[in-house]
């Protein structure tokens, strides 16, 4: 028998700390440059701001050292870098839009939300010792997800902003519950599909060579699907609906490996979108603004014209290859430059180079999540990590694709970058979940039977460990 030297998995906390220094330098440096370039002096609160960000990052790093020592070392720095760069751009737009009488304070609020988000992520890491605990709450998550989706429709609670009824007002704060719903739904899909994947995939009639699942297996999924369609119809939120649909199709495919269903799903969605485009004027306007963005009457149409999109394209074009530099462009000429269109603001000031770099950071974040999914041993973890990683990547695609005219503009926020408390909290929770799952994915199988509070309950066989490593290598290629 051949003996294999045990592969030493390094926890990677040292790497993480190094990368965190780089990420903090990016964010705080950007913040300082904005102040220098716009006002000529460093921002007054640069020391407090830099210290605050560093403390947040280090606290989370320490929590990881204690609670998830084997967590992926790249995920946290990527999130910190994106959050920091987003803050710098929001501060930059604040400076452009502030007047003496009416100072714009988006950056301060975003900074507060960042603090809450990081602390929430720490709480998740501390409280949730093992991600599989979440599987117990599969149906709770379904109910919670549906409730969150439908919350804005409750009279007196939901408010309509810019035509979309996706906001909830609670105690002076406005929240977008759909951001949290996507996590709940990912938990539900993961829990439900891991149990029912075999019956879904195998039991049921075959029609025209295509295997169909039994209705009773598909039932809960259809309920959720109907819920996300209701978002489209009653809340007029194309983006969130598209996001839920993407999550739904991706996780169904992950669980069943049935490519045919994806095609059916895509067909259904395209069909639904076409029907919606003919039925609802707001959807039709989005398509018109996408296909004929530069027609004069489409630009000037209000509401629902392409003025915002075209302004963003002008902004990005003026940035060119290398951008105008922090604080040197005019991102404030684009409506919602700090939220829905922050990617155009960054494209203008950091140029194509900066925009591609940001996209690469997102790609690294998403692929690290995918690698976690491949590495983790249990099906629930695979589905959950794969699902939330995909939803982050897909959200980037929907947002950036909308701004660059790959797809119609829908109105989602860029994870971590864009202004918005709900989005920031939800994405920090996603990061916490990914870190938690990656910890169990990368944790070496215990060699000695002993008590290890953080270890997975089952002991992994050597074969599985090898598969994990192979998976890692392939994911890298």
């Amino acid at each position, binding site marked *: 028998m051949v003996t294999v030297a045990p592969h030493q998995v390094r926890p990677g906390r040292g790497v993480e700390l190094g990368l965190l220094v780089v990420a903090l330098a990016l964010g705080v440096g950007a913040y300082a440059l904005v102040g220098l370039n716009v006002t000529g002096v460093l921002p007054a609160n640069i020391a407090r701001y830099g210290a605050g960000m560093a403390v947040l990052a280090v606290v989370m790093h320490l929590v990881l050292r204690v609670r998830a020592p084997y967590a992926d070392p790249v995920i946290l720095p990527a999130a910190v870098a994106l959050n920091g760069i987003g803050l710098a751009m929001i501060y930059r737009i604040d400076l452009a839009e502030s007047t003496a009488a009416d100072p714009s304070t988006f950056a301060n609020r975003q900074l507060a939300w960042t603090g809450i988000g990081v602390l929430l992520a720490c709480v998740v890491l501390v409280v949730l010792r093992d991600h599989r605990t979440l599987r117990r709450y599969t149906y709770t998550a379904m109910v919670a997800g549906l409730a969150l989706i439908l919350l804005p429709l409750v009279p007196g609670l939901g408010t309509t902003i810019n035509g979309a009824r996706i906001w909830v007002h609670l105690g002076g704060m406005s929240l977008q519950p759909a951001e949290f719903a996507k996590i709940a739904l990912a938990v539900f899909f993961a829990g439900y599909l891991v149990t029912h994947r075999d019956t879904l995939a195998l039991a049921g009639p075959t029609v025209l060579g295509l295997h169909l699942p039994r209705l009773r297996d598909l039932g809960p999924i259809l309920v959720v699907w109907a819920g996300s369609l209701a978002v489209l119809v009653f809340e007029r939120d194309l983006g969130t609906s598209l996001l839920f649909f993407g999550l739904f199709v*991706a996780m169904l*495919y*992950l*669980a069943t*490996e049935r490519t045919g269903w994806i095609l059916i799903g895509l067909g259904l969605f395209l069909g639904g979108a076409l029907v919606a485009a003919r039925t609802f004027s707001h959807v039709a306007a989005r398509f018109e603004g996408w296909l004929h963005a*530069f027609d*004069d009457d489409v*630009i000037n149409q209000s509401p629902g014209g392409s003025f915002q999109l*075209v*302004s963003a*394209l*002008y*902004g*990005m*074009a*003026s*940035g*060119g*290859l290398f951008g105008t530099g922090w604080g040197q462009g*005019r991102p404030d*000429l684009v409506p919602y430059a700090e939220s829905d269109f922050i990617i155009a603001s960054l*494209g203008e000031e950091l*140029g*194509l180079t900066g*925009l*591609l770099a940001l*996209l*690469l950071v*997102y*790609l690294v974040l*998403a*692929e690290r999540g*995918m*690698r976690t*999914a*491949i590495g983790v041993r249990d*099906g629930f973890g*695979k*589905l959950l990590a*794969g699902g939330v*990683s*995909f939803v982050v*990547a*897909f959200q*980037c*695609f929907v947002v*950036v*694709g909308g701004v*660059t*005219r*790959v797809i119609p503009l829908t109105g989602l926020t860029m994870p971590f970058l864009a202004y918005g408390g709900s989005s920031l909290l939800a994405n920090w929770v996603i990061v916490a979940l990914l870190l938690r799952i990656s910890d169990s994915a990368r944790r070496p199988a215990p060699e000695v039977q002993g008590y290890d509070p953080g270890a997975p309950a089952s002991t992994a066989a050597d074969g599985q460990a090898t*598969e994990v490593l192979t*998976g890692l290598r*392939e*994911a890298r290629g």
Partner: protein
Amino acid sequence: MNTPLRRIAVVVVVMFLALMGAATWVQYVQAAQLNADPRNVRTLYREYDNFRGPIVVGGEPVASSTPVDDPFGFQRAYTNGPLYAHATGYYSIVYGRTGLERASNDLLTGTADSLFLSRIQDLVTGRQPQGSSVELTLDPAVQAAAAEALGDQRGAVVALDPTTGAVLAMVSSPSFDPNVLAGHDTSTVNDLYRTLTDDPGEPLVNRAIAGDTYPPGSTFKLVDAAAALESGLTPESPLAAPDVLPLPASSATIGNFGGASCGGGGTVSLAEALRISCNTAFAQLGLDLGDDALREQAERFGFGAPLSIPLRVTPSRFPEDPDQPQTALAAIGQQDVRATPLQMAMVSAAIANGGEQMAPFLVRTVRSPDLEVVEETSPSVLRTPVSPATAAALRDMMVGVVETGTGTAARIPGVLVAGKTGTAQTTDDVAPHAWFTAFAPADAPRVAVAVIVENGGNVGNEATGGRVAAPVARAVIEAVLAR
């Protein structure tokens, strides 16, 4: 589940590649087109946020940019605005550019190809890029004298250096203050612009080169005389000069100014006919020479040709295919003949310069911000409308006009002035336009000038070119000779 996970991971990569491709498309491939889109307000801001070079007259900037704290970054200001308004034009965030602000825009912004090295220097030294200064040929004293002599009469004055073509004065009246249109407050600018466009005096129109061109009246007789001399006639050649000329194939007639007789109703010499501006003699001469000969001579003086100095000049014109009565009328500068004051100044300048017409130009030098000369206009011969002999004969005939003829108001003691008057009827119920074109000194010309005073100016129906326009020309000539 690892196989579908890997596939999804690939899908994610593909999605991001699509985004990167789209971003490259927007920010690199399409960027130039998007930046040039006239609806792109950034282009406007970027252009106006530019340390634009000054326009300089006589060593002093008449248009210059100063940094201000607003989205546009710089404020354009015009010193002595109304005096140079039609040369500089205006630079407005709402109404764009006119005049040299438009014609020399790429030099003033510093984006012209000839400024490439200067831009590289700015890049290397980190100096704030600034546009070039554009120095004009206008002479402040001559320009001021022309504007003052014209006063509040509607009209225009153009003065050229006949030996180089340099434009010494270009005045159009009434004028406007370009400062009011250069403001950054859109609604104020809109209101002031509307006031200017509603003004019946049309102050925004540069009458000197681009107005509704005028019938040149008797100043066109210089072209007739040139054609006659070029065809072999001499100043002494006798011309039939009836008191009233019946026009062929029509019941209309042409009489002389005020019903006067020239030469007692018989014949007059060509020189005499020009001196007293005899309509019947020149109408008959025009009929004898034919419209083709007149048109050809007019075109050799520049009629019908596009011209840019670098302001765009409206081409003057001679009718395409006139019948006999129309030809007779065209010969005395009526009917469908139209000329700009610059064109008539160019006629005089060509005669003054021995038959060689120099290309008129308004921009003398272009200097980079470090005062290095980037471009310099060198005088060039545009055309040779007449032979030196013809030019000399015409000069002597024009001297006669000023010495003892219709243009005596332009006489200057001790200086030989050569000129020609014109009184152009427009419609019966409106006072005629008064013209005068001249050059001086006749033996060594330093200035050629053309003046038009619309609808008789301050004199009204009593106006003649000799009475209203000649004194303006004299003031301009004196200003040049006093330099």
